[in-house]
């Protein structure tokens, strides 16, 4: 196996998952366009594509776990790939959110004459930032602290405690998502209510989507920790999840200050 190769790199076996992911992406995009235009079967193709993409993610990453944890291909130098890759991915996500914060600032710093030159626009009943958003503001950083607790537990070899810490992290994350969902449901304005609604729901909505993805990632880390996959020297997947989680946390803080608090004044 790895002893028979005289280098410490990982030359992967041929895999069908890249092509299946591409086909899923093709189906998603074509289906999406069909859905948004008057073509039959668009919705079906779109959902088929999305399911295919999710399936590809599942099997691809299952294979990564098999190759790394079970087959031992992930030497220190191989680990650099996922490490730097995760960091760069998070940087690209920062750029993604930068765009939405720019959009929000563009419309709110110098409100157009067409909406009366004021922000928030007339008729928008903004959410009180000192109610649910203010409650959510300590919840997310607390779950960030819990993930740091989990990390320390892993490094110290305290495996059971690491599982408890990850459970705490995920629970806090779910509480946050629950509160946000509740507020979305009860909000007096919708995404169609002027540029305020658009920028608000786009920014907070994508943040919520990222919270859900991060929560899923952390749940998987929790399961892997429970199954004993993570060791104190080698837990790149966990670190990636933790970095992603801290990123999500920071984005929330920016959202709270600029959109909830400043945007409602």
């Amino acid at each position, binding site marked *: 196996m790895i002893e028979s190769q005289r280098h410490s790199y990982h030359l992967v076996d041929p895999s069908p998952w890249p092509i299946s992911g591409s086909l899923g992406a093709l189906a998603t995009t074509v289906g999406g366009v069909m859905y948004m235009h008057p073509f039959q079967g668009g919705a079906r193709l779109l959902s088929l594509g999305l399911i295919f993409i999710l399936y590809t993610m599942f099997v691809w990453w299952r294979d990564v776990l098999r190759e790394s944890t079970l087959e031992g291909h992930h030497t220190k130098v191989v680990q650099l790939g996922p490490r730097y890759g995760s960091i760069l991915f998070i940087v690209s996500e920062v750029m993604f959110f930068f765009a939405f914060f720019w959009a929000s600032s563009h419309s709110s710093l110098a409100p157009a*004459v067409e909406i*009366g*030159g*004021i922000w928030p626009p*007339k*008729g928008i009943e903004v959410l009180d930032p000192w109610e649910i958003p203010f409650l959510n503001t300590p919840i997310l950083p607390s779950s960030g602290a819990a993930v740091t607790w989990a990390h320390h537990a892993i490094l110290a070899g305290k495996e059971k405690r690491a599982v408890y810490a990850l459970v705490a992290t995920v629970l806090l994350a779910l509480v946050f998502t629950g509160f946000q969902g509740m507020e979305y449901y009860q909000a007096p304005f919708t995404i169609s209510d002027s540029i305020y609604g658009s920028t608000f729901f786009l920014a907070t909505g994508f943040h919520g989507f990222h919270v859900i993805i991060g929560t899923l990632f952390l749940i998987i880390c929790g399961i892997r920790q429970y199954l004993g996959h993570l060791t104190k020297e080698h837990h790149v997947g966990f670190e990636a999840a933790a970095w992603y989680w801290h990123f999500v946390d920071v984005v929330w803080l920016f959202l709270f200050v600029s959109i909830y608090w400043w945007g409602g004044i």
Partner: protein
Amino acid sequence: SLASSASSRRHRTGEKSWRFANFFIFNRLRLLLSLSLPNQAFSSFVFRSAMEDEIELKTAPADFRFPTTNQTRHCFTRYIEFHRCTTAKGEDSNECERFAKYYRALCPGEWVDKWNEQRETGTFPGPL
């Protein structure tokens, strides 16, 4: 070479201040021209004195809050100010006539018509 560099420095400073003065005078001349010539782009209303047959042309004064070429916000602000003035001081108040002249000078007629219509239907988005 020190002396020559010093003299060239003086010369350069002189040139800069001359350029600045030129620009300043040019802008003043532009303003004077805009106010004195009967040009449709600059003037907005004509005032005839009863004593002499003299046409006095005026427009809204330059507002340092709106230094840009795009004067949309200036127009909108004057419109809002006029209506806030009439709400506070009552309709047909003399003090508000000043604001009325300003917004009529600055704003395109179509905008004023649209905003008046919005005010009547209660859909005007500005802070009146």
